[in-house]
């Protein structure tokens, strides 16, 4: 046994080691229900059963042995598409919606099948990166649960039947000018679609258009109106900001601009970023989020206190006189005010979209006061068409439906029966409408209650156009013709406007032909090729604060009502994976552990350990939550970093008509969400039911307790670092019993920067899509059998009350001295000359010795035949990667297919590969540019540059496995003033375990 830590990891690393814990059980010494349990595989048949089973299996083996393989067929094209080279993928530039706004992507198609999404480097919302939603879009496209036919009253009908029914409606109401006709859409940021809605409204002047999606920008737009007198969008340029203060604002994960924000933010967070360019992030938040985890200082505060917190900061800066109770400690305010004043014009104060308008208004005021507007903050015209208040719009619609004023309702894309606030009782109002049409990807809860359902074409099957968060326009083009004869929203609206002849493409092109009459052909060609419309980014607009702003603000800011000391609030958040529930049937997203709780397949009531202690609750206890006369029962999950009197519940679960994957997972939080408190509500009562609900958690499956795993240093420590102290030499010990690995012209290696990694999980899904990785389901996940080749581990640092989360992506380390290789009896795990530890599937016999001997637990075993469970999904698979069968071990191989194909292309040209020519799937997707892959043999390569940093360290270097994948230690940039005072106060004020802190908030 090697000593756990050798002298080389030094004093700093040693000290760092002490502070980490990984789950509550580890920190508090209580047994954790989710530790891998022994799996029950007892099988005790009697003789009869045994004989029956053996007989049946021999008979079946005989039968299958007789099947003759048939010759494979090759079906030639009639006339091949011009851009297609046989056997090579074709990439189409397109755009995918994220909460209604566009994210530019490149759709990889293999012989006409969209198989993978990459980011579009020229699109402002992507810059080449993608998030989990974009990566998972291909799975949604091929989802066999998608709606496949027009339905009338639940039975199969045709598009022509629907058109006839629509015509009958028109005839019956001829001359009414559309009285009683309503259209309900989600956020529309598409010029062509908006024009079509307008033409419907021209044909039926008395018809009305409503908008509703649960994750909307109502609060942001209302705030802009309050401050500037007009609705507009605010674009934050985090690449220009040295100080960022986030008030319940998860800009890294919960916004249409998140990918871009993460990219910009990372430019000042890389481990090697210059000290004077580094940014500092303060986060005040209720639910632990990626932004909070990335923060240099994070303070958990209740969602209801965020308004008072930002008012306190604004007042301290002298930006406003709004007077409410103080909630933040003075030391924090002093530190932030000093930082903001020292960085005028280079700071950002941002609030989250679940905070009410006056919080955003105060953020605007502070930003204007600090001179940030025009520098780090840019105002642009709203990207959405007609950015109305969607909650008011929905309420209008429900009132009209209840009043019997509506004859016909067309629902485009939305699922209001599931997502509308509970108090509006949308479903019962909907029942009063005589003619209801639903258009969507799935026969969902709303489709179920409509007379007609029209299947929607997937965004990867349509032409269209979408504006990005900053207003930049991009054209959408399909990667494949609609699989199930789905109709685009364009076709449906055209039918409503009386045009039933033109298809999706003609409609979109006709719009642009009108708009760009002079140069349409060149425009269209260029926009489709580039993926954005040149020059469509709107100019920033100069807006002045309203003259009566002070009065408006004072009126809008509620004086904090006196709350009972133990008043508990519930906070609703978008699920970090499945959003508002629209992606509930996407198994990749369901199985991807949520970044902080590490739960998959479920939502849970996230509660502070202190609250749990007070109520005697443990993980997985089902609790009843009552608020405003409504109640739900949901499993509890103890979560460090949640304020003590706050419960967080993610939306999007508890679907009943999502599909085979999404139905029945988790609990529907919309059932207790009301229109007067859509994001957080006080007065919550919780009681234990005494029952348990099993949750699948990836948290303790790969525990590497007590070792030197994630390293974090403050900027000061990092600057003083020498490799001996902070990092670890990759070659700890030259003497070894292992065979010397072969060498070749290339030596592939990877560096992962823990400073810029935000823990979003895009790498995991990109890898899943690229490498044909199967999904195992909740039950198998509870057995610890998830298949992800790159997982994102989450550790905690500090006290439980305000624990800081740390992320660490862990792919195969590609050890030069790989412990897996020496134990494989069939040489299925071997090294190649480029330094990759390859897994030879056709040799593997499934002993699992390698996995047993892997110190990083990155090897994945196919316990079952996971890959051919769902017939339709084989079309998504990457033809460049072997599909593994049951009984075979698999793991990350640095995207060997990408390396090999790039190498072949270079060899055909007779040259060496250039640095950056091979990009792994995880690296391409990463919005924070945390992953760099390259050739160690190339002295100039980026990966070599990173590995020469004193912060470079290898995971479990003491084992002398010599990993090719290494990490850059995480560097934080805490405020010198605050670091001291918080450490002191922590020591002084940390409540003893088991006690409840009952002091007033302001005193803590």
């Amino acid at each position, binding site marked *: 046994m090697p000593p756990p830590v050798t002298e080389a990891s030094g004093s700093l690393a040693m000290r760092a080691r002490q502070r980490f814990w990984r789950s509550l059980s580890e920190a508090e010494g209580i047994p954790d229900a989710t530790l891998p349990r022994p799996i029950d595989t007892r099988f005790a048949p009697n003789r009869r059963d045994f004989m029956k089973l053996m007989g049946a299996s021999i008979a079946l083996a005989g039968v299958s042995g007789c099947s003759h*393989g048939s010759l494979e067929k090759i079906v030639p094209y009639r006339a091949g598409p011009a851009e297609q080279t046989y056997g090579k993928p074709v990439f189409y530039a397109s755009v995918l919606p994220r909460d209604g706004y566009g994210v530019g992507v490149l759709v990889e198609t293999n012989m006409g099948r969209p198989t993978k999404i990459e980011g579009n480097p020229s699109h402002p919302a992507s810059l080449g990166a993608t998030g989990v939603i974009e990566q998972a879009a291909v799975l949604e496209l091929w989802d066999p649960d998608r709606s496949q036919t027009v339905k009338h009253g639940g039975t199969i009908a045709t598009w022509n039947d629907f058109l006839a029914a629509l015509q009958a409606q028109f005839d019956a109401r001829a001359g009414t000018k559309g009285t009683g006709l309503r259209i309900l859409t989600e956020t529309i940021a598409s010029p062509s679609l908006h024009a079509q809605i307008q033409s419907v409204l021209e044909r039926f002047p008395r018809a009305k258009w409503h908008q509703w999606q649960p994750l909307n920008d109502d609060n942001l737009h209302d705030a802009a109106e309050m401050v500037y007198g007009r609705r507009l969008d605010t674009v934050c340029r985090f690449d220009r900001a040295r100080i960022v203060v986030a008030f319940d604002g998860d800009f890294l994960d919960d916004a249409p601009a998140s990918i871009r924000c993460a990219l910009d933010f990372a430019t000042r967070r890389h481990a090697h970023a210059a000290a004077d360019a580094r940014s500092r992030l303060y986060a005040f938040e209720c639910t632990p989020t990626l932004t909070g985890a990335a923060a240099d200082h994070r303070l958990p505060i209740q969602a209801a206190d965020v308004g008072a917190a930002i008012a306190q900061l604004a007042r301290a800066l002298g930006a406003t006189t709004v007077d409410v109770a103080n909630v933040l400690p003075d030391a924090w305010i002093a530190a932030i005010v000093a930082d903001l004043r020292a960085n005028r014009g280079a700071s950002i104060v941002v609030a989250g979209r679940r905070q009410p308008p006056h919080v955003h208004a105060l953020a605007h005021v502070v930003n204007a006061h600090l001179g940030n507007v025009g520098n780090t903050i840019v105002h642009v015209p709203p990207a959405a068409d007609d950015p109305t208040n969607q909650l008011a719009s929905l309420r209008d619609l429900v009132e009209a439906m209840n009043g019997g004023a509506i004859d016909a309702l067309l629902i485009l894309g939305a699922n209001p029966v599931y997502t509308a606030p509970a108090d509006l009782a949308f479903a019962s109002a909907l029942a009063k409408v005589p003619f209801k049409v639903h258009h969507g990807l799935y026969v969902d809860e709303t489709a179920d209650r409509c007379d007609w359902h029209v299947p929607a074409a997937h965004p990867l099957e349509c032409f269209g156009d979408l504006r990005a968060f900053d207003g930049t326009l991009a054209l959408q083009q399909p990667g494949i013709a609609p699989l199930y004869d789905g109709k685009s929203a364009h076709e449906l609206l055209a039918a409503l406007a009386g045009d039933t002849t033109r298809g999706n493409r003609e409609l979109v092109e006709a719009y642009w032909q009108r708009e760009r009459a002079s140069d349409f052909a060149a425009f269209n060609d260029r926009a489709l090729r580039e993926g954005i419309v040149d020059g469509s980014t709107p100019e920033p607009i100069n807006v002045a604060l309203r003259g009566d702003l002070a009065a408006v603000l004072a009126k809008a800011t509620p004086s904090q009502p006196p709350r009972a000391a133990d008043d508990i609030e519930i906070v609703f958040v978008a699920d970090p994976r499945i959003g508002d529930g629209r992606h509930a049937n996407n198994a990749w997203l369901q199985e991807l552990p949520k970044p902080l709780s590490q739960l998959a397949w479920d939502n849970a009531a996230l509660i502070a350990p202190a609250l749990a202690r007070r109520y005697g609750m443990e993980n997985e206890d089902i609790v009843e939550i009552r608020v405003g006369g409504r109640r739900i029962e949901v499993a509890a999950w103890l979560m460090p970093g949640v304020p003590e009197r706050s419960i967080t519940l993610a939306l999007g679960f508890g679907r009943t008509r999502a599909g085979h994957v999404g139905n029945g997972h988790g609990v529907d939080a919309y059932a207790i969400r009301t229109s007067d408190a859509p994001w957080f509500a006080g007065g919550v009562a919780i009681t234990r039911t005494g029952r348990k609900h099993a949750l699948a958690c990836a948290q303790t499956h790969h525990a590497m307790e007590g070792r030197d795993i994630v390293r974090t240093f403050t900027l000061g420590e990092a600057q003083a670092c020498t490799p001996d102290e902070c990092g670890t030499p990759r070659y700890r010990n030259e003497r070894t019993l292992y065979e010397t690995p072969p060498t070749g012209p290339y030596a592939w290696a990877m560096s992962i920067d823990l400073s810029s990694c935000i823990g979003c999980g895009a790498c995991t899904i990109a890898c899943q899509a690229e490498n044909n990785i199967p999904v195992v389901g909740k039950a198998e996940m509870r057995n610890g059998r998830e298949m992800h080749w790159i997982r994102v581990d989450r550790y905690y640092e500090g006290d439980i009350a305000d624990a800081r989360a740390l992320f660490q992506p862990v792919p195969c380390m590609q050890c030069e001295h790989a412990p897996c290789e020496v134990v494989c009896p069939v040489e299925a795990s071997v090294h190649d000359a480029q330094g990759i530890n390859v897994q030879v599937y056709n040799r593997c016999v499934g002993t699992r010795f390698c996995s047993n001997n892997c110190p990083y637990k990155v090897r994945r075993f196919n316990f079952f035949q996971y890959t051919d469970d769902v017939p339709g999904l084989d079309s998504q698979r990457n033809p460049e990667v072997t599909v593994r069968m049951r009984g075979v071990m698999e793991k990350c191989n640095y995207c060997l297919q990408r390396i090999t194909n790039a190498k072949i292309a270079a060899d055909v040209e007779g040259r060496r590969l250039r640095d950056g020519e091979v990009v792994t799937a995880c690296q391409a997707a990463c919005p924070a540019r945390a992953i760099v892959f390259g050739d160690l043999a190339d002295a100039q390569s980026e990966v070599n540059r990173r590995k020469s940093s004193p912060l470079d360290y290898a995971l479990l270097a003491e084992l002398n496995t010599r990993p090719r994948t290494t990490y850059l230690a995480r560097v934080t940039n805490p405020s010198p003033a605050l670091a001291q005072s918080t450490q002191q106060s922590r020591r002084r004020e940390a409540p003893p375990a088991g006690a409840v802190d009952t002091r007033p908030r302001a005193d803590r």
Partner: protein
Amino acid sequence: MSQVFSPRFALVLRIATVFVLAGIVAAAVVYRVNARGDAPQDDPIEQPIPFSHQHHVRDDGIDCRYCHTSVETSAFAGIPPLATCMTCHAELFNDAPVLAPLREAYAGGKALEWNRVHDLPGFVYFDHSIHIAKGVGCSTCHGAIDRMPLTRRVASLYMQWCLDCHRNPEAVLRPRDQVFNVEWQPPRDQKQRGAQLRQEYGLRSTRELTDCSTCHR
């Protein structure tokens, strides 16, 4: 778990096991001989149209790349689209009954389905472009295609066969201008010339050429 079998029954079972095992071996042999998924070696494969490489290559002198367009740029050599066939057959033999399936498919009727002659297992990734670029000629693997009225496979496509070449590529390397020459025969001093060409083409080391990751991923 309770004892499942009585001692007497266990004996019967042992004897039965011997027979079953023998049966399995016999079945495996029978299966191996009869149930290969790919086309048999050296037997012409029946096709919907009895396409003759001999006629098109030897008699008409059409270059391989006229139909197999992506052989120099892609892993897959490419099967010609029907339009390629119709460049000639719109005029020549345009009413021959044997070409009826082609005309029907081209007119939008039943698709033409060729039977694959060279079918590698799914976990093997062969790439035509790199072999062409490094001087491995068509006939090295595909044989005297210009003498095949019906196409057949002349190589076993077993891993052993691939490795024979990857271990000793000198034996087959040709000058680049001879790659598409189906009549090329190795000269008497091929060993020398091959070694020279190997140098010139910058072939990877034998170790690299025989790495698992060269063909499997």
